[in-house]
């Protein structure tokens, strides 16, 4: 992505199938607005998110990555989001160490009933990333094709 005045961030949102993906659908049915730079990838559960997918997104030029899952205790598979939370905490501190600002990653619990929360979360996340500006760090590692 080239830098120009029109720059808008590119954001990947991983959503678990049972809660957050449905929450995102509900935001749509409710005609709530959030910026078009959020693109959702559906995964069965937040615990399916391999930290490598996040790294891959940053290597390929994503400016922000967000993981959404069911609220603690509500995971369709009971415990998935607890694993996800632990793994992401580890990953985020490593990314921090690599120089990717902490604000570029986020974990958020959004239930299937929380369309408004989904939209609000995305608006807020896009704003945070826009303020942080374009992400360069991992691209600089020459990983980009």
């Amino acid at each position, binding site marked *: 992505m080239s830098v120009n005045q029109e720059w808008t961030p590119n954001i990947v949102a991983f959503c678990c199938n049972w809660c957050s*993906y449905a929450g995102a659908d*509900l935001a*749509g049915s409710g005609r709530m607005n959030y910026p*078009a730079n959020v693109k959702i990838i559906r995964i*069965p*559960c937040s615990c*399916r998110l391999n930290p490598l997918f996040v790294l891959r997104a940053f290597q390929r030029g994503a400016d922000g990555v967000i993981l959404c899952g069911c609220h603690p205790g509500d995971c369709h598979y009971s415990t998935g989001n607890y694993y996800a939370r632990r793994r992401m905490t580890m990953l985020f501190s490593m990314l921090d160490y690599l120089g990717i600002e902490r604000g570029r990653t986020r974990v958020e619990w959004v239930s299937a009933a929380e369309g408004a929360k989904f*939209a609000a979360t995305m608006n807020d996340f896009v704003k945070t990333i826009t303020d942080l500006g374009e992400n360069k760090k991992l691209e600089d590692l020459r990983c980009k094709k």
Partner: protein
Amino acid sequence: MQRIGVFVCWCGSNIAATVDVKAVAEAAKHEPGVVFSTDYQYMCSENGQAMIREAIKEHRLTGVVICSCSPRMHEATFRKTAVSAGLNPYMVEIANIREQCSWIHKDMAEGTEKAIILARAAIAKVHLNAPLVAGTSPVTKRALVIGGGIAGIQTALDIADAGFEVDIVEKAPTIGGRMAQLDKTFPTLDCSACILTPKMVDAAQHEKINIISYAELDSLSGFVGNFTAKIRKKARFIDETKCTGCGICTEKCPSRKGLNDFNMGLNTRGAVYIPFAQAIPNVAVIDSAQCIHFRTGKCGLCEKNCSAGAIKFDQKDEILEREYGAIVVATGFKPIDASAFNEYAYSDSPDVVTSLEFERIMNAAGPTKGKLVRPSDGKHPHEIVFIQCVGSRCTEDATKGKPYCSKICCMYTAKHAMLVREKYPDVKVHVFYIDARTPGKNFDEFYRRAVEQYDVDYIKGMVGKVSVEQDHLHVQGSDLINNEQIHINADMVVLATAIEPDPTARALGTMLTASMDTNDFFTEAHPKLRPVESPTAGVFLSGVAQGPKDIPETVAQAGAAAAKVIGLLCKNELTCNPCVAHANEALCNGCSQCERVCPYGAITYEDKEVRSPEFRGIKRIAVVNGAICQGCGACTVTCPSGAMDLKGFSNSQIMAEVDAICR
């Protein structure tokens, strides 16, 4: 290389108003592998589906991408369409350009750009899709019902009437549950035993029902359709096949100090006892902690007097292993411990009783043969105070009470008040209540009868203190309507204590991997649409185990749970979700990490012969049982060797989507 077809739906104007569908279809044409791309007004309509079918055949498509509404809406529809054109259903991917695009974004240029990216991601994914075949697993045509209260009995009867075998596992020496302890039942005031005991007999005599009493679930393995349960049948020190239920032993037993739990501890029983006259099975049981023989090796009077030779002091717990296709949880409830409520003097005076104790006092088969007397001195009471919501709707102190409404107390208190006034018109009855909640058929009429016809003194307010005085209980409370303090000298106080799930519920929930709420009631798969199913496949809920309810509601839910079980047991085999995990044998090193995170115990290990460039020989390898795996993916991320992957959501598929979005 796949031959991919892309189908962009307008969804009338739902998509087409903010996404240039023609531009999306055009852009898709330039993606690698795409051999056909088009748009149509309503892709899910019969015409739309026919178009997809024709294109699959004509262009020999190996993969299909539908740009449309959410996959949660029509993924299943389009998979069927693919199947009818001879394509594997898992070669279809949906790009959600409605809920997650056209409905969100107002600007046409923005919406179109995003829709193209979403289509690109779906195309990238479908390139890596592989045909998946859903496996099947057989169904054991027998149900396990845990708990033999009215909920369990009704569920078992309904399942058995449909022709399936049912085992009822009941932890008490008899089935019947709480309903067996009740006197009359609201709102009709018919005798509880008169309507329950025929059902108990029906269950006992049903050729398809097998009652395993004085037993609890020890462990459970397996999954929907294929559970294996180990059931611990506790030693009752009586040979069930020989005991005739004559009751001689219970009369001869000299150790008479055991509290009679069926009568809520209001009187005592022998060490060998039959819980009540209509118990099923009608077989005695020895309380070994109380029995003189177990303590001193002497006595044995029961053994000497049993003409059937049924006493077996050396009987041991027995473990039965049984297979089931479905499990119903019907473990019911118990009243909470009222002794935490010091202000009501429950521990200080025998004349302060709980409602369930009161049921026993009023019951013709109870400790007082149904005569209403004060437990302390056996005298006839003249004034009785009922206190509602003892420990229910208690939000201030979680150690003492419960935050929820126990639902049945308003009604049974009205019942108690009415029964007292009916039988003893000279007794004054006061009821302290916060709200009188009577939603239910004929419920409000019932409550009004108590007030209007039976002249029960309902006082809206709380009781502050019950103090034990010389010859009576002093009740001090407030009347919120007249805004005054009330003092009553009562002979008895009855506490409508909150109900809570059976104390075994939590451990049982863990064994079944069935989820429960913070109050230990089992949770339903969906609070409105799937109220009798647990989120765990093959586990169903019946009665108060799921939440407070009265008998009519319990029976209705019991029938509903039975219908769900019958629906399951009717099937000869179950289709499994094919999007399951599998380990790459060449990469797996048998480290056991995956097994530890799997919430369903789907992963086991096998020594397998592996022939790959990296390894030749026998090694320990993870094997996923496709019928148990639910496809969460926890194991795939945990695996340190990258051996574990998930079909349908593989590492490479998700990476391809990431790449397509970040291109």
